[in-house]
């Protein structure tokens, strides 16, 4: 009996300790978001006053957010982000999927060489190619256009590799059956491989969109016009702007930039987490 009581006490202590520790790390993870949201609805004088309130005494959210939305083309940043990420991803698929299919399921001369090239390509960090990409775009007069944001990314060795690994797991019999049913190779890709590979495509899509929505390095190099900025670059331009000197609107702007992905994540957590860890582990 005494043992039982002791066990229950130990158990309860353990539950409490776990929640206590996790509350701390959760606080660490979330506090910047809370801080951002809090400041984004505060008037300037409250931000600078010595005592701190999580919720403002005078709600200034409407003003801050409307300044953020009007002083900088915040909506353009988001639209640009959406457009650029979607285009990159679609083009990546268009290039990667047939190549991955051929690497996984067709026999042709040079296949091993091509796959080796893809593996070598995986090693190259994209930042290392910034100079020649810049030069190339400069030569074709494409700097400071959407094309500059999109073109360097349409070949993804990672995408080829990922899709190839996935396609290899598709049984050969399925493809043979399709050939007997009268499908040509490209029809096999469209009607059989792509539908079967939806999980892998979703994972790659999440990876690709998150990477390019959040990328700062390349837009900083390729883009000069504010109207062409992607979200990450946009918030930086906004900060260095006049209106960005005010913390309330700046935090409101940051919230607007961060929100789309975070909201998407909250709606499809499992998908995102599976996708990101799937791509990381392949």
């Amino acid at each position, binding site marked *: 009996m005494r043992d039982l009581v002791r066990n229950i006490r130990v158990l309860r202590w353990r539950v409490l300790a776990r929640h206590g520790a996790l509350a701390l790390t959760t606080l660490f993870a979330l506090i910047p978001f809370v801080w951002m949201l809090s400041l984004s609805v505060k008037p300037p004088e409250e931000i600078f006053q010595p005592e701190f309130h999580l919720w403002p005494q005078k709600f200034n959210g409407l003003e801050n957010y409307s300044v953020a939305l009007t002083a900088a083309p915040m909506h353009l940043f988001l639209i640009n982000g959406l457009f650029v990420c979607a285009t990159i991803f679609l083009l990546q698929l268009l290039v990667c999927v047939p190549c991955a299919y051929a690497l996984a399921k067709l026999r042709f001369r040079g296949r091993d060489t091509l796959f080796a090239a893809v593996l070598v390509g995986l090693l190259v960090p994209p930042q290392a190619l910034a100079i020649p990409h810049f030069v190339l775009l400069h030569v074709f007069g494409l700097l400071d256009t959407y094309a500059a944001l999109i073109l360097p990314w349409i070949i993804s060795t990672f995408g080829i590799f990922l899709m190839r690994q996935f396609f290899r797991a598709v049984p050969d019999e399925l493809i*043979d*059956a399709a050939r007997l049913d009268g499908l040509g190779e490209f029809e096999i890709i469209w009607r059989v491989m792509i539908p079967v590979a*939806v999980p892998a495509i979703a994972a790659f899509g999440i990876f690709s969109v998150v990477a390019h929505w959040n990328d700062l390095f390349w837009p900083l190099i390729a883009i000069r016009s504010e109207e062409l900025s992607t979200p990450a670059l946009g918030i930086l331009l906004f900060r260095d702007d006049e209106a960005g000197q005010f913390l309330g609107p700046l935090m409101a702007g940051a919230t607007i930039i961060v929100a789309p992905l975070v909201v998407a994540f909250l709606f499809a957590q499992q998908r995102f987490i599976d996708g990101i860890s799937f791509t990381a582990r392949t």
Partner: protein
Amino acid sequence: MSGIALSAVAKSHGATPVLRGISLDIRDGEFLTLVGPSGCGKSTLLRIIAGLDAQDSGAVVIGGRVVDGLRPKDRDVAMVFQAYALYPHMSVFDNMALPLRMRRLSGAQRLPLVGALSPGRRPIEEGIRHEVEETAALLDIGHLLSRKPGQLSGGQRQRVALGRAMVRHPAVFLMDEPLSNLDAKLRVQMRAEITALHRRLGSTFVFVTHDQAEAMTMSDRVAVMMAGELIQVGAPDELYADPRDMRVAEFIGSPKINVVPAAALDQGTRAAMAAVPGASALAFRPEAADICAPAAGVLAGSITGVENLGADIFLHVAARPAHSQGALPLIVRVAPSGRRFAVGDVVGVNPDPARVLQFDAGGRRLKARERVAA
């Protein structure tokens, strides 16, 4: 007219030969089974007939037409695969409709998205729906048409795979171990259904299996393959009673044929089994011998097992021939007759000399003709 004629079909993977010149005529409407141990090249041969692989040399003729170089879909063949190979993302209906759509809809009508709107597609789709439903009814899967393959049992998937092959009325059905993923009971049932199907459709069936029981029960003729070669082609009873090769004799029949090395026998026993000069192995089926008193038997030994199947009893006997090192395991069938056998009983075994098959050192059958000559 859709027989299949293979002439000297050969194929190697790299340096290793997989098929060594296979010549075989399969008659129109015949049910031919390819049997052989794993890795002997059955699937490879089937894939060459289907056009999924190309042979290195030799020719394939289907229905009087040389099909070498024709793509699988132009050969008028359908194939049923071991793991069914159903499209996991399509409903049963779409799985079965796909081969018809690919043949009847034009390239433009098959285009993604826009194809659905193209004129003239409706009546074709109607026809396809009708035919799919007809075939599904025939296979008793009409109620499953809207399901995905993942929601079906193994037997149901097997039927859908058959349906997908049947729906376009091919001249030739190729089946690569289609029953090996089913449990034993279902397998026996599907055997019967496939033979019934064959009778009804009247098309040519080429059926691959490594299960000799399937081969024996289903086929008009059986082709036995070993190591890339055809060893013997014949009706099941012909292969059973008159095997041309030791490997065929051993592969066909269950329980396995009894094989006695001639060297293990003394002169008298050899004579009693009608052994001819040059015979290195004597073989007899379980039903080609009688049990008798130990002293009266040509061979004798103690019973190591009794397998009572009701209509038949199989006795496992460890015979001890004169020059044999260890025991020689034999299986003898006896009719249930009131006599009880127990493990440990010593019995005699008397093979019927007329039904003893004799093979030379290379495993080739020594026929009666040769016996007379010798």
